[in-house]
């Protein structure tokens, strides 16, 4: 099953490689991994999307907790959570494509953030499924380039991951 694991870790050189190394050394899947400092610059927050049986996920959580730099680990799937991913897509915007791209962007509530002679760059936020659906809707011929951040997640209501 797919799990989103959030963790807080010391914002130190090499901390990311400890997490990435753990996943590769133990053969765990990584669908995506995002990391950035938090409002407290000594801490980084990481979101890892992974998949595995219950026992594998249990081991992943335990092994992450064992890393000395990791302060807290939360499996978002243990409760209610919100998940978002940001995508930038550069699309063909010539002739009939120009109107079509604008319309698709509106339907998916994206924003055109760069306009050039023959291209638009669209910004879209949502769940991974929504981004997939958008790409499918655009069609291969329209897409020139895509970049996705991977998922970020946060617990709903008073589920808070903080030191």
């Amino acid at each position, binding site marked *: 099953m797919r799990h989103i694991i959030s963790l807080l870790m010391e914002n130190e050189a*090499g901390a990311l*490689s400890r997490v990435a*190394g753990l996943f590769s050394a133990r053969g765990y899947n990584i669908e995506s991994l995002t990391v950035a400092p938090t409002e407290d610059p000594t801490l980084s927050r990481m979101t890892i999307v992974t998949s595995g049986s219950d*026992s594998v996920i249990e*081991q992943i959580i*335990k092994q992450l907790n*064992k890393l*000395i730099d990791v*302060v807290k680990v939360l499996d978002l799937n243990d409760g209610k959570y919100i998940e978002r991913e940001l995508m930038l897509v550069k699309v063909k915007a010539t002739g009939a494509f120009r109107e079509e791209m604008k319309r698709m962007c509106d339907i998916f509530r994206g924003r055109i953030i760069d306009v050039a002679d023959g291209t638009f760059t669209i910004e879209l936020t949502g769940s991974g499924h929504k981004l997939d659906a958008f790409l499918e809707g655009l069609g291969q011929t329209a897409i020139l380039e895509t970049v996705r951040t991977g998922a970020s997640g946060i617990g709903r209501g008073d589920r808070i991951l903080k*030191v």
Partner: protein
Amino acid sequence: MADSAHPHQITGAEIVIRCLDQENVQYVFGYPGGAVLHIYDAIYKQDHFKHILVRHEQAAVHAADAFARATGEVGVALVTSGPGATNAITGIATAYMDSIPLVVISGQVPVPAIGLDAFQEVDMVGITRPCVKHNFLVKDVKDIASTIKKAFHIAKTGRPGPVVVDIPKDITAHKTEFIYPDTVEMRSYNPVTKGHSGQIKKAIKLLMEAKRPMVYTGGGVVLGDASEAMVKLVKALGVPVTNTLMGLGGYPSTDKQFVGMLGMHGTYEANMAMQECDVLLAVGARFDDRVIGNPNHFYSKDRTIIHVDIDPSSISKRVKVHVPIVGEVKSVLAEMNELVAAEPPQPSAALKAWWAQIDAWRGKLCLSYDKSSSLIKPQYVIEKLWEVTKGEAYVTSDVGQHQMWAAQYYKFDKPRRWINSGGLGTMGVGLPYAMGCQFADPSAQVACVTGEGSIQMNIQELSTCKQYHLPIKIILLNNRYLGMVRQWQEFFYENRYSESYMDSLPDFVKLAESYGHVGMNIEKPADVEGALSDAFAMKDRLVFMNFITDQKENVFPMIEAGKGLSEMILSQNIDAEDL
């Protein structure tokens, strides 16, 4: 030294020395080189600890590792950058697999040269990351003291392990004031100590009500100094107990409740009792593949498993556990002992029947071997070693058949006396391990049980032994084969002995003599005991004993890789009809 403008400032190298002094380090095992020259200069000027100059960095780490295993203190090794650092890796990985507390200080190229492929540069933090508990690169002289303090704290608390501190050369020349922190505060690292009381109560209830209880203990009992508490609990419950390879000595081997080592080369009675028990208490052990074999076969019998371990990730990793207890084994066992003392168990008919079953299994005499042979049997050498040393020696081993025979036939009654590489299975540890033990306990008898393959992997340390007058006794079981490889080739590769014959062996007696030691060749069974007595009587000499043993002897019992605990192959001498 302090200069006049900043009277309290000392160099990074001097800070390293002062830190080691603050940690009460007695010995540093190491080898100098360019990146650690400032530190070696500071060593020259100090008398806080003794530096032991090995002949290869791998041996420095192994010796520090054995010192830690024998004493319970943190072992310390010092190596230079680049090849010095990479030579240390096998030692670090060995300690990591067996959870041994070590601090390894490595030199690094100067900070401005890092990343430029400088002479003797290697990314030590990167290369050791998968085989350390933690590692640090120190980039400011002001951070040396706090980092070393943290390194010792991390190495010895929780589940112990090796910690690497990589220090660039320029940092060891910079100056600052020396302030050693009294305590370590780390929001990200707070290992659990006390077990959950509710779970502990539940565990004791299960053990008291069990019909076929069994206790299985590992390296955690030895490393956690919990042997005494373990004995008390097992005695009070009146239950059978087995030790893993790493756990030997955690429970006295000569006690009647001890059923021997379990696992791939464990005793018949230990493996059968593991398979057939209805309640299993596992303490400081991790159900690894060499211990319980195939987990699916293990599941084929129902049993309730209680697992006590300091490391949550060891619990339910290979085998699903019913009552997990995370905590220091010593504290958990103390709490268990209190509960048992408050309500001592009554002798039950079921337990009596269980012991009758175990005694029947014992009746197989699974460790018997041919005593009428005209060749020296390796098992016989170990039995005589046990007699001659009265069971009190530190016994180190390398890896292979001789290791298994040492584990099976030397009856360890005390913890921290059996020193071997269980997890990584590192050939070449035996001699440096013996060095570490001899430094840990200078007047003790130290025996290194080895093979002609393993001993040659760190034989250069005979020179170190001479320099520091280490009276180690090397028990070489020389069968001219990489014996365990040969055994597998005999059993599973139709006798195709691919590259397992050891040709062109040196004359070990002359070799030992050329290093300034005593060498002995022993070729007849009748000479074994006398030779051992003579060797151990030479209290101030290293004696290298070359026992020419039966080439074709195999280790039994044996569980083939991937098979289950009750699927043992026994020696041909033993009746196997009801297996």
